């Protein structure tokens, strides 16, 4: 097997990856053993990660203390969850920290046990209602070099603005350290929550902060999907006027209103965006059997795509090529994954053993990995990722309730999913290797997360 320890960071996969299922998989597909360098969107696998310290941001006034602490904490969490660096423990830090570059003594930070290569630091001023943050990110081993990142932020003296600036600064650092791949600290996650009494569409920051309800359908709303430009969220809804049936609803995140979308006969559900945002593929039984249809993003020019016995649904467009669509069908007896061209041609079953259900396809941003949920015959649902060209497979969750509905972050390094591991269904995020798992929702029944594309 090529999945040698040198290909991944120590302690990462070994616990998560699945001797039993993997050996089983190998028995079914000898070609699995032939893959190489399969997890190309991984988290700096095989590369030693830069070690980073984040000094407490220095408050310039007593009333700035709580926001300084918030900024430092949010920044540390963002960097820690990025997966591309090692964060030096705060307990090692000196009591005197720099507030401006002129106060920086690099030797303090490069010495063991901090052993940092980079330091984030700065100061925060709160005057009247105004917030001002100056923050730097320096290479402490090269004291004479200019800051890697230096930014000044101005806003309102609120927690919301403080969080926003901490996320922006984190994304600048992550982009600088990862060769320009943008961070995801400013992204959002749409999801379904029943905490208001009905299942409605909600949105939260990527770290679980700022959870708020978007839709007010007062019925059942399901399966939110961000448009590629993040200006709209398509979802499954049950309008409370007219004939009761599942329909596609379209929410504008710019105007915070529902856009007009045509109603079609039968059940209509599970919208999926083409990567250019011009088309939506969705399941509809408008002609009788549940099949996949494609329409313009305003719902017009609808056209049937699949022709098969049983149900076809859960379309996921390859975001890189725009040519290939993964979907779920029970045409073979049980729900399994298939791929096809976006016009319906070249239908192929994704080669997995015919055991249990394979559902919830989600394509990584680079189009190489297909994440999905697999309900094995023992009844557990777990998240898997498969390299679509080599069919190499990795189990990302294990023995922790039902784990379903993976959705990729735009950096291709993170996944969000739903899990019942605490006894209730909640939203969780993790690195795409199954590590660094974070619980994002804590109350009520929450499901169907979808990561904003930017």
């Amino acid at each position, binding site marked *: 097997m090529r999945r040698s320890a040198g290909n991944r960071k120590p302690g990462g996969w070994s616990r998560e990856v699945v001797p039993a299922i993997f050996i089983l998989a190998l028995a079914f597909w000898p070609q699995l053993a032939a893959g190489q360098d399969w997890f190309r969107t991984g988290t700096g696998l095989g590369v030693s990660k830069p070690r980073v310290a984040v000094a407490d941001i220095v408050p310039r006034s007593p009333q700035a203390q709580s926001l300084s602490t918030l900024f430092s904490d949010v920044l540390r969490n963002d960097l820690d969850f990025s997966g591309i660096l090692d964060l030096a423990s705060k307990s090692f830090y000196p009591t005197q920290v720099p507030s401006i570059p002129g106060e920086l003594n690099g030797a303090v930070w490069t010495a063991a046990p901090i052993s940092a290569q980079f330091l984030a630091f700065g100061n925060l001023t709160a005057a009247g209602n105004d917030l001002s943050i100056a923050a730097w990110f320096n290479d402490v081993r090269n004291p004479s070099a200019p800051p890697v990142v230096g930014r000044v932020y101005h806003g309102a003296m609120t927690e919301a603005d403080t969080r926003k600036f901490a996320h922006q600064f984190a994304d600048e650092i992550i982009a600088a350290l990862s060769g320009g791949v943008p961070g995801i600290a400013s992204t959002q996650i749409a999801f379904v929550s029943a905490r208001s009494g009905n299942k409605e569409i909600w949105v939260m920051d990527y770290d679980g902060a700022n959870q708020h309800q978007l839709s007010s359908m007062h019925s059942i709303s399901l399966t939110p999907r961000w448009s590629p430009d993040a200006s709209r969220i398509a979802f499954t809804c049950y309008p409370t006027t007219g004939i009761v*049936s599942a329909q596609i609803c379209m929410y504008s995140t710019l105007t915070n209103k529902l856009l007009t979308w045509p109603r079609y006969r039968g059940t209509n559900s599970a919208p999926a965006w083409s990567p250019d945002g011009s088309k939506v593929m969705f*399941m509809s039984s408008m002609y009788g059997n549940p099949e996949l249809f494609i329409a313009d993003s305003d719902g017009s020019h609808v056209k049937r795509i699949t022709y098969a016995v049983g149900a076809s649904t859960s379309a996921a467009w390859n975001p890189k090529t725009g040519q290939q669509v993964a979907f779920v069908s029970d045409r073979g007896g049980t729900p399994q994954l298939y791929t096809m061209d976006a016009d319906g041609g070249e239908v192929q079953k994704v080669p997995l053993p015919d055991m249990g259900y394979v559902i919830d396809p989600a394509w990584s941003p680079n189009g190489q990995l297909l994440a999905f949920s697999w309900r094995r015959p023992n009844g557990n649902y777990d998240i898997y990722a498969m390299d679509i060209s080599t069919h190499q497979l990795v189990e990302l969750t294990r023995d922790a309730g039902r784990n379903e509905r993976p959705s990729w972050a735009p950096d291709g390094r993170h996944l969000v999913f739903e899990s019942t591991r605490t006894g209730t269904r909640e939203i969780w995020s993790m690195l795409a290797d199954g590590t660094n798992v974070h619980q994002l929702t804590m109350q009520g029944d929450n499901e169907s997360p979808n990561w904003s594309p930017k």
Partner: protein
Amino acid sequence: MRTRSVGSVIRLSLLVLVIAGAGCKHPAPVTQAPPAPAAPPAQPTVTLQATPANIQSGQSVTLRWTSTNATTLTLGPAIGAVAAEGTSTVAPTDSTTYTITATGPGGSADASAHVTVASAAPAPAPTSPSATLEEMFTREMQDAYFDLDKADIRADAKQALSKSAQFLRSYPQIKVALEGHCDERGSTEYNLALGDRRAQAAKDYMVSLGVPADRMQTVSYGKEKPFCNEHTEACWQQNRRAHFAMAK
């Protein structure tokens, strides 16, 4: 040809072993009493009762059966294999003789029960005159149940839908929402599709029984409105159904 010769060799070897084994054994003493002959397998018995034995069309009958010494029981018409004892509710639209056949090692036995069905009473249907239409609807309409991942109308679902069609034919003013439901095991999205197929299959069968299609509006709720919330097969079966709701 090779397989046959191999088989011959094996049989020959076994024969040799048996002969060799017999040759080594001491002969049994002739004074030993002969073994008691094995008791012949007991003859199966079966009973079948239908209660009540006389109904109006649209009413239901409980079939109750017991059996002994049987390994398989088949109840007909159109019910199939059943347990050693039990009950089943049927709603024949015409007079019917139900027969149960018990088969076991000792042979087989039959029992029959006849149900006489009087032609449908003129509307209102034979229910308490004080019952509202909603109450009668709830009492008379029967949902169709489905197998896992399937939208095929089972034999028991045909009986249930026949009863529901009978009621709807008697009350042409009623319109229904025909809801497709699923158990919790598939995904939300797959279950919305599967529930749609179940509602549609039930509607098609109702149409075949003479209920006009425009009186039945289908809707799929997938696994969003379960009837039962436990994680057991009994509960899952409750949730795999096409459910009739009276349209407002």
